[in-house]
C-alpha cells in the first residue's frame, strides 16, 4: 500500500464526519506522510496500523466530543448527528454485524407492516366499489321484476359505492403522507451522513 492509497482509504472511512473534520484529518496525515519521507512510508504505515484503525480513533474521539457538547457548533440537531455517528462507529466494528442485521430487519418489518395495513385498506375500498357497481347492475336489471327490492338494492349499492370511493381516496392520501413521512425521516438521518454538501 502506498501513502496515496492509504490516505484514500482513510478518507473513505471518515465519510460520515463533517467535511471540515475530514479535510483536517487528511491534511494532518498527508503532512505526516511527507514528514516521514518516501523512504519511511512503509514503516510508517506499519506503525500507524490500518486506515480502519486510524479512522476509528478519529471517529470515536469526534463522537465523544460531540456528546459532551464541546463541539464548535452547538446545532440543535447535533444529538441526531451524534446518534448517527455512534451507529456508524458501532457498525464499523465487526461484533456489530449481527446487531446491524437485527436493526435492518426491525426497520424492514416495520415498513412491511405499515404497507400491508395500507394495502388491505385499499383492497377493502376497491371491494366496496366493485360490490356497489355489481349491486347497482342487479338493481337496474331487477327494477321491472321486483321494483321495491330493486330500489332497496340500488340504494345499498350507492351507499357502498360512495363509502368505497371515500375510503379509497382517504387511503391514497394517507399513503402519500406516510411515504412523505418515511422519506423525510430517512432524509433527515442520511442527510447527516455526507455532512454539509
Amino acid at each position, binding site marked *: 500500500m502506498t501513502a496515496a492509497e492509504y490516505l484514500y482509504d482513510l478518507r473513505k472511512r471518515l465519510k460520515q464526519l463533517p467535511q471540515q473534520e475530514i479535510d*483536517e484529518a487528511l*491534511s494532518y496525515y498527508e*503532512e*505526516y506522510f511527507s514528514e516521514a519521507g518516501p523512504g519511511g512510508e512503509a514503516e510508517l504505515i506499519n506503525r500507524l496500523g490500518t486506515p480502519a*484503525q486510524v479512522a476509528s480513533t478519529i471517529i470515536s*474521539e*469526534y463522537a465523544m466530543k460531540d456528546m459532551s457538547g464541546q463541539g464548535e457548533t452547538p446545532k440543535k440537531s447535533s444529538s441526531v448527528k451524534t446518534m448517527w455517528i455512534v451507529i456508524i462507529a458501532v457498525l464499523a466494528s465487526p461484533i456489530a454485524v449481527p446487531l446491524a442485521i437485527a436493526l435492518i430487519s426491525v426497520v424492514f418489518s416495520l415498513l412491511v407492516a405499515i404497507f400491508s395495513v395500507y394495502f388491505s385498506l385499499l383492497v377493502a375500498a376497491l371491494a366496496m366499489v366493485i360490490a356497489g357497481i355489481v349491486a347497482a347492475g342487479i338493481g337496474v336489471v331487477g327494477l321491472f321484476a321486483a321494483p321495491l327490492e330493486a330500489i332497496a338494492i340500488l340504494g345499498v349499492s350507492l351507499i357502498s359505492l360512495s363509502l368505497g370511493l371515500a375510503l379509497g381516496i382517504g387511503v391514497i392520501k394517507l399513503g402519500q403522507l406516510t411515504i412523505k413521512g418515511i422519506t423525510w425521516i430517512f432524509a433527515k438521518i442520511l442527510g447527516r451522513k455526507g455532512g454539509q454538501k
Partner: protein
Amino acid sequence: MFQLGSALLDACVLAVIKKGDTYGYQLTQEIRNIIEVSESTLYPVLRRLQSEEMLITYDVAHSGRNRRYYQITIKGREHLEYLQNNWQHFKAAVDYLLLVVPAEEDLEEGQSIEAEKSAKEDAAAKAGQDIEGEQS
C-alpha cells in the same frame, strides 16, 4: 504496559507544546521517544485540544509544502497547570499504594514518618476522583 489515559495524554501534549511550538510529526516522535504511544493516538488529542481552544494552529511553508504548527493558548496553560496539580496528587496516591504500603510491612513499629501520614491523607482525599479520571 501502563497506558496513558485521555487526561494524561492531554497533559503530555500540552507540556511538550508549551516548551515550544511544534508540528504533528515532530510532537509524536518527541513523545514516542520518551513513552510508548501509538502513532495514531495524537491526532484526535490535538484536534480536541484545538476545538477546546487550548491550542491554536498556524501554517508554515517548509520545502514546498505545509507544516501545521500547534501553539498553546492561555487557556491551555491553565489547563496544563490544573492537570499537573492533579497528576502530583495521583502520583502520590499510586506511589503510596504501590511502594509505601508494602514497604511499611518491613518497617518496625513507631518508625512510620510524618511525611507518609500526609501522603496517606493526600491519597485518601484525591485517589478516588483521579483514578476515575485516568481510566476514562
